[in-house]
């Protein structure tokens, strides 16, 4: 009691020392509380981001695969192995009491061409011609003719810059073709033989067209229905979910906006968002750059407008700009030169007048898109798949990390993957021998083939139905599931019909589960600790001798999962430094005060205080300091955390959105945070008290007499 009293009195008496030591301890406690809150909150919110979007709690991959699964890690396919016996594994896993759901997955990236406007217009022209609609044919034809003229201009420009000798033969002949298509004679003769003209345009000109965006899309090939049910962050934005058992593609809304949307519109959106955040056109370099791009790339708009639309847009822009200018390019340029004052109005006008007349998204809900993969065996694969809509991971709509994942059905995924087991290859060889078909050279087959197997392309003279195709591939056969056999009928009509029926074909669960997959996501039941889940899953793998390796979400997510470890390390290191500094300073100041108190301590020793009692006096003093200042620091830290926990902290960028699992970050103090902080402060204080206490214990009663005699 008297020791505590002396300790307290000492603290109050030696104010400077107490202020220094106290300040350090307060800061250390504050830092620990805030740091722990940040990290544990990031950890839990990020784990929610990762677990509930794609990774689930536990991931399985092939044991002994060359690369470890890295869901948020490197792009492109890596050698994470293959899983062939999913139905068996699924059955075993679902029997575990810890497991809530099991979802087959495969993550890959492929190239998709984001919609060639000329292609789209040519298809419209073909349809108009086929329908015999003279007026529509006329309107569309004039638009196509204008597009060809623009294209010719563009290419002539390009020719001026390019070294002729380095130009490929394809390029050279293409230039000649475009020039030819830009001759009045070509268009004068159009009506006489529209189909051959169309074919010339489709085969020779369209490929030369500008405005074709190459999209690199990352997708999860999965059992789309199960994915939708299991990952609760998943929600549809536009369109409909892929119907159960059907093929289909869902764009992540983030990717869709970033990559598929009309570039000018997208830039206007970005300017709007940036201005909403408080930026000014006049001072924001990035906004200036976007405006510059919008002005110079006016063709992205003008190229897409037919005569009627051109007139309407011209009129609207003339009115807005109060201009007599008749050149649309100049009008668009002037219109896009926005400033803080006119932006809102022009943005609205763009979406009211221009947007409805252009192709706002290169790929639209309901479109069939062509995905160009690169199979594991090293050849290019191409599949057509219907785009059903867009989705987002709730709260992660702005996150580039989670926003990069699109969703593809497993059947199409396997076609793109083009994975062939030895059994499968043998089987195909057998089928080929039986039906007497020969392989086609890829080059010549390409233009005519539509949906095709990821593996070898096989010609079949009859129009195959999906039923036949399915029958040709046993359900348990991995990879290249259904459409191995593809028709190459005249004009491709048979193939188109085939592709259409393929789109609406409903696969059974056995077929979906039956093929090869790359990894398996396991969602645990609520309240089950991931560690316990891992133990159960690993035991199951051992018991069943599955060739699988289990990774928890942290390991499976790749770099991002490690990220939390990195910030832990950074925090731990900075706390360590703070503590080290505190240790030195506290120790120093206590030594000073011990020396000052030499006579007092000597007196206590003289009048009968034991060494241990002196030690205790120091320990008590250290504890009092640690508790008082630690508590103050904790209170400050807790106050700050509680403040931001209530009001939230704006996640500054996309990565922060991912970390915080939403647009605002709400830090919370973990229940063990307070004891940990207090304990840490106490330990540091005690350690820094050791040396001064040892010094004090060595003070002899003689010190009390030092000034006598």
């Amino acid at each position, binding site marked *: 009691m008297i020791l505590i009293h002396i300790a307290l009195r000492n603290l109050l008496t030696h104010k400077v020392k107490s202020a220094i030591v106290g300040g350090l301890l307060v800061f250390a406690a504050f830092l620990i509380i805030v740091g722990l809150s940040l990290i544990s909150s990031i950890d839990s919110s990020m784990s929610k981001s990762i677990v509930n979007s794609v990774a689930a709690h536990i991931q399985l991959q092939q044991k002994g695969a060359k690369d470890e699964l890295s869901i948020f890690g490197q792009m492109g396919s890596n050698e994470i192995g293959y899983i062939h016996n999913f139905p068996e594994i699924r059955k075993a896993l679902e029997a575990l009491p810890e497991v809530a759901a099991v979802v087959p997955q495969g993550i890959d990236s492929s190239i998709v061409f984001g919609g060639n406007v000329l292609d789209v217009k040519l298809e419209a022209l073909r349809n108009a011609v086929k329908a015999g609609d003279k007026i529509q044919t006329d309107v569309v034809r004039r638009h196509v003719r204008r597009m060809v003229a623009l294209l010719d201009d563009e290419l002539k420009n390009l020719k001026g810059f390019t070294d002729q000798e380095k130009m490929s033969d394809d390029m050279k002949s293409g230039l000649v073709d475009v020039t030819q298509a830009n001759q009045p004679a070509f268009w004068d003769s159009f009506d006489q033989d529209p189909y051959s003209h169309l074919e010339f345009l489709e085969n020779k000109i369209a490929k030369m067209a500008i405005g074709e965006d190459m999209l690199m899309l990352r997708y999860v090939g999965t059992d789309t229905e199960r994915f939708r049910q299991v990952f609760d962050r998943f929600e549809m934005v536009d369109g409909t979910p892929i119907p159960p058992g059907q093929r289909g593609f869902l764009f992540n809304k983030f990717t869709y906006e970033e990559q598929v949307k009309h570039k000018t519109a997208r830039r206007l959106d970005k300017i709007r968002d940036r201005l909403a955040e408080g930026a000014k056109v006049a001072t924001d370099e990035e906004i200036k750059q976007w405006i510059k791009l919008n002005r110079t790339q006016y063709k992205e708009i003008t190229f897409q407008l037919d005569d009627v639309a051109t007139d309407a847009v011209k009129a609207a822009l003339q009115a807005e700009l109060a201009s007599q200018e008749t050149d649309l390019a100049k009008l668009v340029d002037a219109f896009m030169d926005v400033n803080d004052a006119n932006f809102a109005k022009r943005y609205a006008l763009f979406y009211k007048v221009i947007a409805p007349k252009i192709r706002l998204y290169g790929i639209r809900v309901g479109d069939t898109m062509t995905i160009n993969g690169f199979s594991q065996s090293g050849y290019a694969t191409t599949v057509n798949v219907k785009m059903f809509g867009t989705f987002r991971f709730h709260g992660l709509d702005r996150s580039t990390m989670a926003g990069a994942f699109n969703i593809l059905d497993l059947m199409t995924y396997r076609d793109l993957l083009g994975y062939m087991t030895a059994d499968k290859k043998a089987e195909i060889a057998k089928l080929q021998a039986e039906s007497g078909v020969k392989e086609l050279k890829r080059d010549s087959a390409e233009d005519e083939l539509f949906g095709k197997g990821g593996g070898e392309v096989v010609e079949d003279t009859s129009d195959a139905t999906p039923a036949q195709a399915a029958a040709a591939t046993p359900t348990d056969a991995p990879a290249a599931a259904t459409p191995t056999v593809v028709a190459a009928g005249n004009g491709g009509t048979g193939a188109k019909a085939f592709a259409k029926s393929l789109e609406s074909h409903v696969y059974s669960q056995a077929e979906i589960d039956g093929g090869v997959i790359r990894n398996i996501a396991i969602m645990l039941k609520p309240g089950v600790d991931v560690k316990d889940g891992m133990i159960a899953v690993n035991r199951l793998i051992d018991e069943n001798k599955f060739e699988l390796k289990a990774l928890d979400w942290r390991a499976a997510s790749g770099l991002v999962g490690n990220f939390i470890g990195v910030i832990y390390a950074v925090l731990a290191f900075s706390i360590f430094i703070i503590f080290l500094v505190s240790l030195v300073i506290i120790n120093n100041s206590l030594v000073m005060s011990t020396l000052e108190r030499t006579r007092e301590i000597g007196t206590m*020793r003289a*009048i*009968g*205080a034991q060494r241990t009692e002196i030690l205790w006096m120091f320990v008590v003093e250290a504890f009092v300091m640690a508790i008082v200042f630690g508590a103050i620091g904790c209170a400050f830290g807790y106050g700050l955390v509680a403040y931001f926990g209530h009001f939230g902290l704006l996640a500054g960028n996309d990565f922060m959105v991912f970390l915080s699992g939403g647009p605002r970050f709400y830090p919370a103090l973990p229940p063990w945070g307070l004891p940990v902080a207090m304990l840490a402060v106490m330990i540091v204080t005690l350690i820094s008290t050791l040396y001064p206490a040892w010094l004090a214990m060595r003070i002899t009663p003689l010190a*009390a007499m030092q000034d*006598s*005699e």
Partner: protein
Amino acid sequence: MATTPSSQPIVHLSNVDKDYKLGAVTVTALRQVSLEIAPGEFTVIAGPSGSGKTTLLNLIGCVDVATRGQVIVAGQDTGKLAEGDLTRLRLNALGFIFQSFNLVGVLDAFQNVEFPLLLQKKMNAAQRKERVMDLLNRVGIAEYAHHRPGELSGGQRQRVAIARALVTLPRIVLADEPTANLDSVTGNQILDLMQELNREGTTFLFSTHDPKVVSRAGRVVRLVDGRIVAEETAEQYQTRQA
């Protein structure tokens, strides 16, 4: 508390030497000192600076041990005691009064006096309070019980120190130049108080080189260069000084 009968001497020194090592040189501070202090004495160790007064007091006060010879305090041979036992002996059998008072600055007068009782852990709070207040009354500063040393005059502080020295009812109170830091009027008052206490039964042993203090002594032990050169009465001392 010492258990030896009160007729026995409280302090018994025989042929005590005390050497100090100053680097390679050994300085002998006390030579062949033999001395007995009986209960009830009011003894002064007198001598010039450096004569070994404080060294002698330290040996008797069990804060230092003899190099040679025997020091028996309250029946215990201090040379044979461990550090902890010496401390216990100081706590239970001895009272200290220092030249600079040596009060604990952060404690008030009451707490300073109570401190040795807390170390003893023998009394409850009520008993301690009674004892402490009794002593503060006795030394005449009860009204300052809750003042801290910084708020007290030198004389008042030394009264607190005296109360602290007496609070454990020690066998002997050792006082090292207790009036050196006090003006002569205050010093006299302190000596009056100590004499009164002595008459009530407390044994005192002083060191001093102040003739006025010596004049109060019942017995004077004169120390020169670490040797006891004479044992005399205060009158004999004063006559010789004159």
